Protein backbone atom coordinates (compact mmCIF):
# COMPACT_ATOMS: atom_id res chain seq x y z
CA UNK A 1 0.00 0.00 0.00
CA UNK A 2 2.64 2.48 1.09
CA UNK A 3 4.70 1.47 -1.87
CA UNK A 4 1.88 2.18 -4.32
CA UNK A 5 1.20 5.58 -2.75
CA UNK A 6 4.86 6.38 -2.99
CA UNK A 7 4.90 5.22 -6.57
CA UNK A 8 2.03 7.58 -7.35
CA UNK A 9 3.64 10.48 -5.54
CA UNK A 10 7.00 9.98 -7.24
CA UNK A 11 5.63 9.35 -10.74
CA UNK A 12 6.93 12.27 -12.86
CA UNK A 13 3.78 12.32 -14.98
CA UNK A 14 1.78 13.27 -11.88
CA UNK A 15 3.99 16.33 -11.42
CA UNK A 16 3.58 17.74 -14.89
CA UNK A 17 0.98 19.86 -16.54
CA UNK A 18 -2.06 21.83 -15.55
CA UNK A 19 -3.50 18.98 -13.48
CA UNK A 20 -0.18 18.06 -11.89
CA UNK A 21 0.71 18.16 -8.21
CA UNK A 22 2.48 21.59 -8.21
CA UNK A 23 -0.31 23.25 -10.17
CA UNK A 24 -3.04 21.80 -7.98
CA UNK A 25 -1.11 22.69 -4.82
CA UNK A 26 -0.83 26.31 -5.96
CA UNK A 27 -4.49 26.36 -6.88
CA UNK A 28 -5.37 24.97 -3.46
CA UNK A 29 -3.22 27.61 -1.82
CA UNK A 30 -4.65 30.40 -3.96
CA UNK A 31 -8.26 29.51 -3.10
CA UNK A 32 -7.38 29.15 0.57
CA UNK A 33 -5.60 32.50 0.77
CA UNK A 34 -8.45 34.35 -0.95
CA UNK A 35 -10.91 32.72 1.44
CA UNK A 36 -8.72 33.59 4.44
CA UNK A 37 -8.46 37.19 3.31
CA UNK A 38 -12.21 37.44 2.89
CA UNK A 39 -12.80 35.84 6.30
CA UNK A 40 -10.31 38.20 7.94
CA UNK A 41 -11.87 41.25 6.30
CA UNK A 42 -15.14 40.36 7.99
CA UNK A 43 -13.92 38.89 11.26
CA UNK A 44 -11.07 41.19 12.27
CA UNK A 45 -13.04 44.48 12.39
CA UNK A 46 -15.91 42.84 14.25
CA UNK A 47 -13.55 41.17 16.71
CA UNK A 48 -11.70 44.44 17.28
CA UNK A 49 -14.93 46.32 17.81
CA UNK A 50 -16.35 43.84 20.29
CA UNK A 51 -13.04 43.44 22.13
CA UNK A 52 -12.37 47.18 22.35
CA UNK A 53 -15.83 48.33 23.36
CA UNK A 54 -17.03 45.21 25.18
CA UNK A 55 -20.32 45.64 23.29
CA UNK A 56 -22.03 42.64 21.74
CA UNK A 57 -19.96 40.00 23.51
CA UNK A 58 -22.86 37.65 24.13
CA UNK A 59 -24.00 37.90 20.51
CA UNK A 60 -20.47 37.21 19.31
CA UNK A 61 -19.99 34.13 21.45
CA UNK A 62 -23.30 32.66 20.29
CA UNK A 63 -22.68 33.44 16.63
CA UNK A 64 -19.26 31.82 16.78
CA UNK A 65 -20.60 28.59 18.23
CA UNK A 66 -23.53 28.56 15.80
CA UNK A 67 -21.10 28.99 12.87
CA UNK A 68 -19.01 26.11 14.10
CA UNK A 69 -22.01 23.80 13.89
CA UNK A 70 -22.52 24.49 10.16
CA UNK A 71 -21.96 21.38 8.00
CA UNK A 72 -19.57 22.55 5.30
CA UNK A 73 -20.55 20.18 2.53
CA UNK A 74 -24.25 20.98 2.92
CA UNK A 75 -23.60 24.69 2.74
CA UNK A 76 -21.40 24.21 -0.28
CA UNK A 77 -24.16 22.48 -2.25
CA UNK A 78 -26.75 25.04 -1.17
CA UNK A 79 -24.46 27.92 -2.13
CA UNK A 80 -23.68 26.28 -5.46
CA UNK A 81 -27.34 25.64 -6.23
CA UNK A 82 -28.44 29.13 -5.28
CA UNK A 83 -25.63 31.05 -6.94
CA UNK A 84 -24.85 29.00 -10.01
CA UNK A 85 -27.75 30.23 -12.15
CA UNK A 86 -26.78 33.85 -11.50
CA UNK A 87 -23.09 33.70 -12.29
CA UNK A 88 -21.00 33.26 -15.37
CA UNK A 89 -17.54 31.99 -16.23
CA UNK A 90 -14.90 31.14 -13.69
CA UNK A 91 -16.74 33.02 -10.98
CA UNK A 92 -19.66 30.64 -11.25
CA UNK A 93 -17.46 27.81 -10.05
CA UNK A 94 -15.33 29.65 -7.56
CA UNK A 95 -17.62 32.04 -5.76
CA UNK A 96 -19.86 29.52 -3.99
CA UNK A 97 -16.84 27.59 -2.75
CA UNK A 98 -15.03 30.73 -1.69
CA UNK A 99 -18.04 31.95 0.24
CA UNK A 100 -18.31 28.65 2.06
CA UNK A 101 -14.61 28.57 2.84
CA UNK A 102 -14.66 32.17 4.08
CA UNK A 103 -17.71 31.55 6.23
CA UNK A 104 -16.00 28.55 7.79
CA UNK A 105 -12.84 30.58 8.35
CA UNK A 106 -14.61 33.37 10.21
CA UNK A 107 -15.24 31.82 13.67
CA UNK A 108 -11.61 31.07 14.62
CA UNK A 109 -10.48 34.57 13.58
CA UNK A 110 -13.40 36.23 15.29
CA UNK A 111 -12.84 34.50 18.60
CA UNK A 112 -9.04 34.91 18.36
CA UNK A 113 -9.24 38.66 17.80
CA UNK A 114 -11.94 39.16 20.37
CA UNK A 115 -10.26 37.01 23.03
CA UNK A 116 -6.89 38.62 22.29
CA UNK A 117 -8.19 42.12 22.91
CA UNK A 118 -10.26 40.96 25.86
CA UNK A 119 -7.29 39.45 27.72
CA UNK A 120 -5.10 42.57 27.55
CA UNK A 121 -4.06 43.48 31.10
CA UNK A 122 -6.77 45.84 32.43
CA UNK A 123 -4.06 47.82 34.22
CA UNK A 124 -2.27 48.46 30.91
CA UNK A 125 -5.54 49.60 29.31
CA UNK A 126 -6.29 51.82 32.28
CA UNK A 127 -2.80 53.31 32.15
CA UNK A 128 -3.16 53.93 28.41
CA UNK A 129 -6.36 55.85 29.01
CA UNK A 130 -4.88 57.71 31.97
CA UNK A 131 -1.91 58.81 29.89
CA UNK A 132 -4.19 60.48 27.42
CA UNK A 133 -4.38 58.00 24.54
CA UNK A 134 -7.46 58.33 22.38
CA UNK A 135 -9.60 55.29 21.63
CA UNK A 136 -7.81 54.64 18.32
CA UNK A 137 -4.39 55.08 19.89
CA UNK A 138 -5.27 52.61 22.62
CA UNK A 139 -6.51 50.14 20.02
CA UNK A 140 -3.50 50.30 17.70
CA UNK A 141 -0.72 51.05 20.14
CA UNK A 142 -1.73 48.83 23.05
CA UNK A 143 -4.62 46.46 22.46
CA UNK A 144 -3.76 45.08 19.01
CA UNK A 145 -0.03 44.57 19.69
CA UNK A 146 -0.84 42.81 22.97
CA UNK A 147 -3.53 40.71 21.26
CA UNK A 148 -1.27 39.61 18.38
CA UNK A 149 -0.42 36.15 19.76
CA UNK A 150 -4.10 35.20 19.92
CA UNK A 151 -4.94 37.01 16.68
CA UNK A 152 -2.21 35.02 14.94
CA UNK A 153 -3.36 31.71 16.33
CA UNK A 154 -6.89 32.58 15.25
CA UNK A 155 -5.65 33.20 11.72
CA UNK A 156 -3.63 30.00 11.77
CA UNK A 157 -6.46 27.76 12.86
CA UNK A 158 -8.74 29.49 10.38
CA UNK A 159 -6.23 28.76 7.64
CA UNK A 160 -5.99 25.10 8.69
CA UNK A 161 -9.76 24.84 8.57
CA UNK A 162 -9.89 26.44 5.13
CA UNK A 163 -7.12 24.29 3.65
CA UNK A 164 -8.80 21.13 4.90
CA UNK A 165 -12.22 22.16 3.67
CA UNK A 166 -10.96 23.43 0.31
CA UNK A 167 -10.50 19.77 -0.51
CA UNK A 168 -14.23 19.30 -0.85
CA UNK A 169 -14.48 22.21 -3.29
CA UNK A 170 -13.47 19.69 -5.92
CA UNK A 171 -16.91 18.14 -5.48
CA UNK A 172 -18.42 21.08 -7.36
CA UNK A 173 -15.74 20.96 -10.02
CA UNK A 174 -13.04 23.21 -8.62
CA UNK A 175 -9.29 22.65 -8.80
CA UNK A 176 -6.97 22.10 -5.89
CA UNK A 177 -5.63 19.02 -4.21
CA UNK A 178 -9.19 17.82 -3.66
CA UNK A 179 -9.23 16.83 -7.34
CA UNK A 180 -6.96 13.88 -6.57
CA UNK A 181 -9.30 12.69 -3.86
CA UNK A 182 -12.49 13.09 -5.87
CA UNK A 183 -11.09 11.82 -9.17
CA UNK A 184 -9.25 9.02 -7.46
CA UNK A 185 -12.43 7.88 -5.80
CA UNK A 186 -14.39 8.11 -9.03
CA UNK A 187 -11.77 6.01 -10.83
CA UNK A 188 -11.16 3.71 -7.88
CA UNK A 189 -7.51 4.77 -7.89
CA UNK A 190 -6.83 4.55 -4.18
CA UNK A 191 -3.15 5.40 -4.49
CA UNK A 192 -4.15 8.74 -6.02
CA UNK A 193 -6.70 9.35 -3.23
CA UNK A 194 -4.24 8.59 -0.48
CA UNK A 195 -1.50 10.61 -2.20
CA UNK A 196 -3.88 13.57 -2.45
CA UNK A 197 -4.73 13.33 1.25
CA UNK A 198 -1.06 13.29 2.17
CA UNK A 199 -0.45 16.34 -0.02
CA UNK A 200 -3.25 18.25 1.71
CA UNK A 201 -1.72 17.47 5.09
CA UNK A 202 1.73 18.49 3.83
CA UNK A 203 0.42 21.75 2.41
CA UNK A 204 -1.31 22.53 5.73
CA UNK A 205 1.89 21.79 7.61
CA UNK A 206 4.08 23.98 5.40
CA UNK A 207 1.62 26.87 5.49
CA UNK A 208 1.37 26.63 9.28
CA UNK A 209 5.15 26.72 9.59
CA UNK A 210 5.30 29.82 7.38
CA UNK A 211 2.57 31.47 9.44
CA UNK A 212 4.37 30.67 12.68
CA UNK A 213 7.52 32.33 11.33
CA UNK A 214 5.50 35.41 10.45
CA UNK A 215 3.96 35.34 13.93
CA UNK A 216 7.37 35.21 15.52
CA UNK A 217 8.43 38.21 13.48
CA UNK A 218 5.44 40.43 14.31
CA UNK A 219 4.77 39.53 17.96
CA UNK A 220 6.79 41.53 20.51
CA UNK A 221 9.33 39.41 22.42
CA UNK A 222 8.00 41.10 25.55
CA UNK A 223 4.79 39.10 25.20
CA UNK A 224 6.55 35.78 24.82
CA UNK A 225 9.26 36.03 27.44
CA UNK A 226 7.81 35.99 30.88
CA UNK A 227 11.10 34.97 32.41
CA UNK A 228 14.44 36.69 32.61
CA UNK A 229 16.80 36.71 29.68
Amino acid at each position, binding site marked *: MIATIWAWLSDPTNWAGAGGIPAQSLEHLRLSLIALLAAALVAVPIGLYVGHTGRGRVVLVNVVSAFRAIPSLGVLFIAALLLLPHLRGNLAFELPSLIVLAVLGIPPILSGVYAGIEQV*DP*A*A*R*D*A*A*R*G*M*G*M*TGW*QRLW*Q*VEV*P*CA*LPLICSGLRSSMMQIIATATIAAVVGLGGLGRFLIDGQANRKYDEMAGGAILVALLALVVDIVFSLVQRAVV*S*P*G*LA*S*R*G*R*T
Partner: protein
Amino acid sequence: MIRLEGVSKEYAAGRPAVDNLTLEAATGEITVLVGPSGCGKTTSLRMINRMIEPTSGRILIDGRDTARVPAATLRRDIGYVIQHAGLFPHRTVLHNVMTVPRLNGWGRARAEARAREVLEMVGLPGDFGRRYPGQLSGGQQQRVGVARALASDPSVILMDEPFSAVDPVAREGLQDDILRLQAELGTTIVLVTHDIDEAIKLGHRVAVLRQGGVLAQFSSPADLLAHPADDFVADFVGRDRGYRALSFQHADVPVHPEEPVRLGQPLGRRSEEWLLAVDDGSRPQGWVVPAEVGEGPVRVEHLHRAGTVAPVDGALRALLDAALSSPSGRGVVVRDGVLAGTVRAQEVLSVIQQAPRPDGASIQGPESASATGQRP
Protein backbone atom coordinates in the same frame (compact mmCIF):
# COMPACT_ATOMS: atom_id res chain seq x y z
CA MET B 1 -3.26 74.10 42.56
CA ILE B 2 -5.97 71.51 42.20
CA ARG B 3 -9.33 72.44 43.63
CA LEU B 4 -12.32 70.16 44.02
CA GLU B 5 -15.44 72.25 44.56
CA GLY B 6 -18.45 70.42 45.96
CA VAL B 7 -17.67 67.38 43.86
CA SER B 8 -20.02 64.41 44.07
CA LYS B 9 -20.17 61.08 42.27
CA GLU B 10 -23.14 58.76 42.35
CA TYR B 11 -22.70 55.48 40.48
CA ALA B 12 -26.19 54.49 41.57
CA ALA B 13 -28.77 57.15 42.32
CA GLY B 14 -29.04 58.03 45.99
CA ARG B 15 -25.83 56.32 47.13
CA PRO B 16 -22.92 58.71 46.59
CA ALA B 17 -19.44 57.23 46.33
CA VAL B 18 -18.10 60.75 46.85
CA ASP B 19 -20.29 63.30 48.55
CA ASN B 20 -19.87 67.04 48.10
CA LEU B 21 -16.11 66.95 48.44
CA THR B 22 -14.29 70.26 48.65
CA LEU B 23 -10.54 70.03 48.81
CA GLU B 24 -7.46 71.91 47.72
CA ALA B 25 -4.20 70.26 46.76
CA ALA B 26 -1.56 72.95 47.00
CA THR B 27 0.94 73.46 44.21
CA GLY B 28 4.30 71.81 44.85
CA GLU B 29 3.00 69.67 47.71
CA ILE B 30 2.03 66.05 48.20
CA THR B 31 -1.63 65.75 49.15
CA VAL B 32 -2.65 62.31 50.34
CA LEU B 33 -6.16 60.89 50.25
CA VAL B 34 -6.47 58.15 52.84
CA GLY B 35 -9.35 56.16 54.24
CA PRO B 36 -10.83 52.69 54.58
CA SER B 37 -11.59 50.52 51.54
CA GLY B 38 -14.49 51.71 49.45
CA CYS B 39 -14.58 55.23 50.90
CA GLY B 40 -14.19 56.82 47.47
CA LYS B 41 -10.46 57.59 47.27
CA THR B 42 -9.94 56.17 43.79
CA THR B 43 -13.15 57.77 42.56
CA SER B 44 -12.04 61.17 43.87
CA LEU B 45 -8.60 60.85 42.29
CA ARG B 46 -9.86 59.68 38.92
CA MET B 47 -12.28 62.56 38.70
CA ILE B 48 -9.28 64.89 38.62
CA ASN B 49 -8.09 63.58 35.23
CA ARG B 50 -11.63 62.81 34.11
CA MET B 51 -11.19 59.05 34.05
CA ILE B 52 -14.48 59.36 35.93
CA GLU B 53 -16.87 62.25 35.31
CA PRO B 54 -18.33 63.86 38.44
CA THR B 55 -22.09 63.82 38.88
CA SER B 56 -21.93 67.37 40.18
CA GLY B 57 -19.44 69.97 41.28
CA ARG B 58 -16.35 71.12 39.44
CA ILE B 59 -12.63 70.58 39.47
CA LEU B 60 -10.15 73.33 38.73
CA ILE B 61 -6.46 72.96 37.96
CA ASP B 62 -4.69 76.28 38.30
CA GLY B 63 -8.05 77.98 37.98
CA ARG B 64 -9.01 76.17 34.78
CA ASP B 65 -12.18 74.09 34.81
CA THR B 66 -11.15 70.59 33.75
CA ALA B 67 -14.56 69.93 32.22
CA ARG B 68 -13.69 72.46 29.51
CA VAL B 69 -10.54 70.63 28.42
CA PRO B 70 -10.82 67.57 26.15
CA ALA B 71 -10.21 64.55 28.36
CA ALA B 72 -7.27 63.12 26.36
CA THR B 73 -5.55 66.53 26.24
CA LEU B 74 -6.04 67.03 29.95
CA ARG B 75 -4.58 63.60 30.76
CA ARG B 76 -1.46 64.17 28.69
CA ASP B 77 -0.57 67.04 31.02
CA ILE B 78 -1.13 64.96 34.16
CA GLY B 79 1.11 62.10 35.24
CA TYR B 80 -0.72 58.95 36.22
CA VAL B 81 0.64 56.07 38.31
CA ILE B 82 -1.46 53.06 39.28
CA GLN B 83 -1.18 50.11 41.63
CA HIS B 84 0.12 47.43 39.28
CA ALA B 85 2.07 49.92 37.16
CA GLY B 86 0.10 48.95 34.06
CA LEU B 87 3.18 48.88 31.87
CA PHE B 88 2.72 47.93 28.23
CA PRO B 89 4.10 44.39 28.06
CA HIS B 90 4.92 44.60 24.33
CA ARG B 91 7.11 47.66 24.69
CA THR B 92 10.56 47.83 26.18
CA VAL B 93 11.03 49.82 29.36
CA LEU B 94 12.51 52.66 27.32
CA HIS B 95 9.56 52.76 24.93
CA ASN B 96 7.11 52.57 27.79
CA VAL B 97 8.67 55.69 29.27
CA MET B 98 8.73 57.42 25.87
CA THR B 99 4.97 57.00 25.47
CA VAL B 100 3.67 60.34 26.72
CA PRO B 101 6.39 62.50 25.13
CA ARG B 102 5.64 60.74 21.83
CA LEU B 103 1.91 61.33 22.30
CA ASN B 104 2.76 64.97 22.85
CA GLY B 105 4.49 65.04 19.49
CA TRP B 106 8.12 64.94 20.58
CA GLY B 107 10.64 63.59 18.09
CA ARG B 108 12.01 60.11 18.67
CA ALA B 109 15.51 61.19 19.66
CA ARG B 110 14.35 63.81 22.12
CA ALA B 111 11.82 61.45 23.70
CA GLU B 112 14.46 58.75 24.02
CA ALA B 113 16.97 61.07 25.66
CA ARG B 114 14.33 62.21 28.10
CA ALA B 115 13.29 58.62 28.85
CA ARG B 116 16.88 57.69 29.69
CA GLU B 117 17.11 60.70 31.95
CA VAL B 118 13.99 59.88 33.98
CA LEU B 119 14.88 56.19 34.19
CA GLU B 120 18.15 57.26 35.74
CA MET B 121 16.23 59.48 38.15
CA VAL B 122 14.18 56.54 39.43
CA GLY B 123 17.27 54.36 39.80
CA LEU B 124 17.03 52.26 36.64
CA PRO B 125 20.07 53.20 34.60
CA GLY B 126 21.52 51.87 31.38
CA ASP B 127 20.41 48.55 30.05
CA PHE B 128 17.17 48.37 32.03
CA GLY B 129 15.77 50.37 29.14
CA ARG B 130 16.19 47.44 26.78
CA ARG B 131 14.27 45.01 28.96
CA TYR B 132 10.60 44.20 28.72
CA PRO B 133 8.31 44.75 31.73
CA GLY B 134 7.95 40.98 32.15
CA GLN B 135 11.65 40.83 32.94
CA LEU B 136 11.44 43.23 35.89
CA SER B 137 10.53 42.71 39.54
CA GLY B 138 7.33 44.26 40.85
CA GLY B 139 9.25 47.07 42.52
CA GLN B 140 11.21 47.81 39.35
CA GLN B 141 8.02 47.83 37.31
CA GLN B 142 6.57 50.35 39.70
CA ARG B 143 9.69 52.51 39.26
CA VAL B 144 9.17 52.40 35.50
CA GLY B 145 5.55 53.42 36.13
CA VAL B 146 6.81 56.46 38.02
CA ALA B 147 9.38 57.25 35.31
CA ARG B 148 6.67 57.04 32.67
CA ALA B 149 4.58 59.54 34.60
CA LEU B 150 7.56 61.88 35.00
CA ALA B 151 8.68 61.67 31.37
CA SER B 152 6.85 64.66 29.99
CA ASP B 153 7.64 66.69 33.11
CA PRO B 154 4.02 67.22 34.19
CA SER B 155 3.26 69.75 36.91
CA VAL B 156 0.68 67.39 38.41
CA ILE B 157 0.95 63.65 39.07
CA LEU B 158 -1.87 61.43 40.33
CA MET B 159 -0.96 58.20 42.10
CA ASP B 160 -3.42 55.49 43.10
CA GLU B 161 -1.93 53.13 45.69
CA PRO B 162 1.34 53.17 43.76
CA PHE B 163 3.29 51.06 46.24
CA SER B 164 0.73 48.77 47.85
CA ALA B 165 1.61 45.78 45.66
CA VAL B 166 5.35 45.77 46.40
CA ASP B 167 7.07 44.26 49.42
CA PRO B 168 7.76 46.47 52.46
CA VAL B 169 11.47 46.92 51.78
CA ALA B 170 10.99 47.94 48.14
CA ARG B 171 8.11 50.13 49.25
CA GLU B 172 10.31 52.09 51.66
CA GLY B 173 12.81 52.70 48.87
CA LEU B 174 10.11 53.86 46.49
CA GLN B 175 8.61 56.16 49.09
CA ASP B 176 11.98 57.74 49.79
CA ASP B 177 12.57 58.22 46.07
CA ILE B 178 9.19 59.89 45.61
CA LEU B 179 9.94 62.26 48.48
CA ARG B 180 13.34 63.07 47.00
CA LEU B 181 12.04 63.53 43.44
CA GLN B 182 9.08 65.60 44.56
CA ALA B 183 11.33 67.91 46.57
CA GLU B 184 13.69 68.22 43.59
CA LEU B 185 11.06 68.81 40.93
CA GLY B 186 8.39 70.58 42.96
CA THR B 187 5.67 68.48 41.34
CA THR B 188 2.16 68.68 42.71
CA ILE B 189 1.21 65.14 43.70
CA VAL B 190 -2.12 63.73 44.76
CA LEU B 191 -1.63 60.25 46.17
CA VAL B 192 -4.20 57.70 47.27
CA THR B 193 -3.38 55.09 49.89
CA HIS B 194 -5.21 53.07 52.51
CA ASP B 195 -2.07 52.93 54.62
CA ILE B 196 -2.04 55.64 57.27
CA ASP B 197 1.71 55.23 57.83
CA GLU B 198 2.36 55.90 54.16
CA ALA B 199 0.02 58.90 54.29
CA ILE B 200 1.88 60.34 57.26
CA LYS B 201 5.26 59.68 55.73
CA LEU B 202 4.55 61.14 52.31
CA GLY B 203 1.86 63.76 52.80
CA HIS B 204 2.43 67.45 53.31
CA ARG B 205 -1.28 67.41 53.92
CA VAL B 206 -3.52 64.42 54.50
CA ALA B 207 -7.22 64.17 53.71
CA VAL B 208 -8.96 61.42 55.66
CA LEU B 209 -12.14 60.23 53.95
CA ARG B 210 -14.86 58.21 55.57
CA GLN B 211 -17.36 55.82 53.99
CA GLY B 212 -19.48 57.54 51.33
CA GLY B 213 -16.68 59.87 50.28
CA VAL B 214 -17.13 62.37 53.08
CA LEU B 215 -14.10 64.37 54.18
CA ALA B 216 -13.43 63.61 57.84
CA GLN B 217 -10.29 65.68 58.33
CA PHE B 218 -7.82 67.59 56.19
CA SER B 219 -4.64 68.66 57.94
CA SER B 220 -0.90 68.21 58.23
CA PRO B 221 0.28 64.76 59.37
CA ALA B 222 1.44 66.18 62.72
CA ASP B 223 -1.94 67.73 63.41
CA LEU B 224 -3.69 64.60 62.30
CA LEU B 225 -1.79 62.61 64.92
CA ALA B 226 -2.05 65.20 67.65
CA HIS B 227 -5.62 66.30 67.10
CA PRO B 228 -7.84 63.76 65.35
CA ALA B 229 -11.09 65.54 64.53
CA ASP B 230 -13.36 62.77 65.78
CA ASP B 231 -13.55 59.14 66.89
CA PHE B 232 -13.46 57.86 63.32
CA VAL B 233 -10.22 59.66 62.53
CA ALA B 234 -8.70 58.77 65.92
CA ASP B 235 -9.55 55.14 65.30
CA PHE B 236 -8.22 55.19 61.76
CA VAL B 237 -4.99 56.90 62.72
CA GLY B 238 -4.35 54.12 65.21
CA ARG B 239 -3.22 53.48 68.77
CA ASP B 240 0.45 54.40 68.73
CA ARG B 241 -0.21 57.83 67.25
CA GLY B 242 1.40 59.45 70.31
CA TYR B 243 4.68 57.73 69.52
CA ARG B 244 4.36 58.30 65.78
CA ALA B 245 3.71 62.00 66.35
CA LEU B 246 7.28 62.24 67.64
CA SER B 247 8.32 61.80 64.00
CA PHE B 248 7.36 65.43 63.50
CA GLN B 249 8.84 66.89 66.68
CA HIS B 250 12.33 68.28 66.79
CA ALA B 251 14.07 69.61 69.89
CA ASP B 252 17.59 69.88 71.29
CA VAL B 253 18.62 66.82 73.26
CA PRO B 254 21.88 66.76 75.26
CA VAL B 255 24.57 64.90 73.33
CA HIS B 256 27.27 63.18 75.41
CA PRO B 257 30.77 62.66 74.08
CA GLU B 258 31.53 59.04 73.25
CA GLU B 259 35.05 57.61 73.15
CA PRO B 260 34.93 55.00 70.36
CA VAL B 261 37.31 52.18 69.48
CA ARG B 262 38.50 51.64 65.96
CA LEU B 263 37.79 48.52 63.91
CA GLY B 264 40.99 46.57 63.29
CA GLN B 265 42.77 47.89 66.35
CA PRO B 266 43.15 46.39 69.83
CA LEU B 267 41.14 47.77 72.74
CA GLY B 268 44.14 48.55 74.89
CA ARG B 269 43.11 48.91 78.50
CA ARG B 270 39.45 49.90 77.90
CA SER B 271 37.19 47.87 80.15
CA GLU B 272 33.66 49.35 80.06
CA GLU B 273 30.82 46.88 79.54
CA TRP B 274 30.01 48.18 76.00
CA LEU B 275 32.28 50.07 73.61
CA LEU B 276 31.24 51.74 70.34
CA ALA B 277 33.27 50.66 67.29
CA VAL B 278 33.80 53.04 64.35
CA ASP B 279 35.51 52.66 61.00
CA ASP B 280 38.41 54.76 59.70
CA GLY B 281 35.99 57.55 58.76
CA SER B 282 34.57 57.66 62.33
CA ARG B 283 31.31 56.15 61.11
CA PRO B 284 29.61 54.02 63.82
CA GLN B 285 29.70 50.28 63.04
CA GLY B 286 28.29 48.61 66.14
CA TRP B 287 28.90 47.81 69.80
CA VAL B 288 31.52 45.45 71.20
CA VAL B 289 31.96 43.72 74.56
CA PRO B 290 35.66 43.87 75.63
CA ALA B 291 35.49 40.38 77.17
CA GLU B 292 34.54 38.98 73.76
CA VAL B 293 37.26 40.87 71.90
CA GLY B 294 40.13 39.91 74.23
CA GLU B 295 43.70 40.85 73.36
CA GLY B 296 43.55 41.05 69.56
CA PRO B 297 42.14 43.75 67.29
CA VAL B 298 38.40 44.50 67.06
CA ARG B 299 36.99 42.56 64.16
CA VAL B 300 33.67 42.66 62.33
CA GLU B 301 32.58 39.37 63.95
CA HIS B 302 32.67 41.09 67.35
CA LEU B 303 30.08 43.71 66.42
CA HIS B 304 26.62 43.81 68.00
CA ARG B 305 24.48 45.75 65.58
CA ALA B 306 21.24 46.03 67.52
CA GLY B 307 21.23 49.81 67.95
CA THR B 308 19.68 52.21 65.44
CA VAL B 309 21.53 55.40 64.56
CA ALA B 310 19.83 58.81 64.51
CA PRO B 311 20.92 62.07 62.91
CA VAL B 312 21.86 64.56 65.62
CA ASP B 313 19.16 66.96 64.39
CA GLY B 314 16.68 64.12 63.82
CA ALA B 315 13.11 63.88 65.02
CA LEU B 316 12.54 62.94 68.65
CA ARG B 317 11.21 59.57 67.53
CA ALA B 318 14.50 58.67 65.86
CA LEU B 319 16.54 59.87 68.87
CA LEU B 320 14.38 57.96 71.33
CA ASP B 321 14.55 54.85 69.17
CA ALA B 322 18.33 55.08 68.99
CA ALA B 323 18.54 55.20 72.78
CA LEU B 324 15.98 52.44 73.36
CA SER B 325 17.50 50.06 70.81
CA SER B 326 21.12 50.47 71.89
CA PRO B 327 22.45 47.52 73.93
CA SER B 328 24.53 49.97 76.00
CA GLY B 329 21.60 52.31 76.63
CA ARG B 330 23.59 55.03 74.87
CA GLY B 331 21.83 56.08 71.64
CA VAL B 332 24.29 56.78 68.82
CA VAL B 333 23.81 60.05 66.95
CA VAL B 334 25.67 61.09 63.84
CA ARG B 335 26.27 64.23 61.85
CA ASP B 336 26.59 63.48 58.12
CA GLY B 337 27.20 59.86 59.01
CA VAL B 338 30.09 60.66 61.36
CA LEU B 339 29.82 59.93 65.08
CA ALA B 340 28.61 63.01 66.99
CA GLY B 341 28.05 61.41 70.43
CA THR B 342 25.32 59.57 72.29
CA VAL B 343 21.96 60.41 73.82
CA ARG B 344 20.12 58.91 76.81
CA ALA B 345 16.51 57.75 76.76
CA GLN B 346 15.86 59.52 80.06
CA GLU B 347 16.94 62.82 78.64
CA VAL B 348 15.05 62.42 75.36
CA LEU B 349 11.92 61.65 77.39
CA SER B 350 12.31 64.69 79.57
CA VAL B 351 12.76 66.85 76.47
CA ILE B 352 9.57 65.30 75.10
CA GLN B 353 7.76 66.15 78.32
CA GLN B 354 8.87 69.73 78.26
CA ALA B 355 8.25 70.24 74.56
CA PRO B 356 5.01 72.05 73.70
CA ARG B 357 2.29 69.84 72.28
CA PRO B 358 1.66 70.50 68.59
CA ASP B 359 -0.93 73.27 68.64
CA GLY B 360 -4.35 73.02 67.06
CA ALA B 361 -4.17 76.34 65.23
CA SER B 362 -3.53 74.83 61.82
CA ILE B 363 -6.07 72.07 62.18
CA GLN B 364 -8.92 71.74 59.78
CA GLY B 365 -11.93 69.64 60.42
CA PRO B 366 -14.51 69.14 57.70
CA GLU B 367 -16.16 72.50 58.43
CA SER B 368 -13.05 74.65 58.27
CA ALA B 369 -11.86 72.74 55.20
CA SER B 370 -14.97 73.65 53.30
CA ALA B 371 -14.66 77.19 54.61
CA THR B 372 -11.34 77.59 52.81
CA GLY B 373 -13.07 76.20 49.76
CA GLN B 374 -15.16 79.38 49.50
CA ARG B 375 -13.90 81.71 46.91
CA PRO B 376 -12.06 84.70 48.34
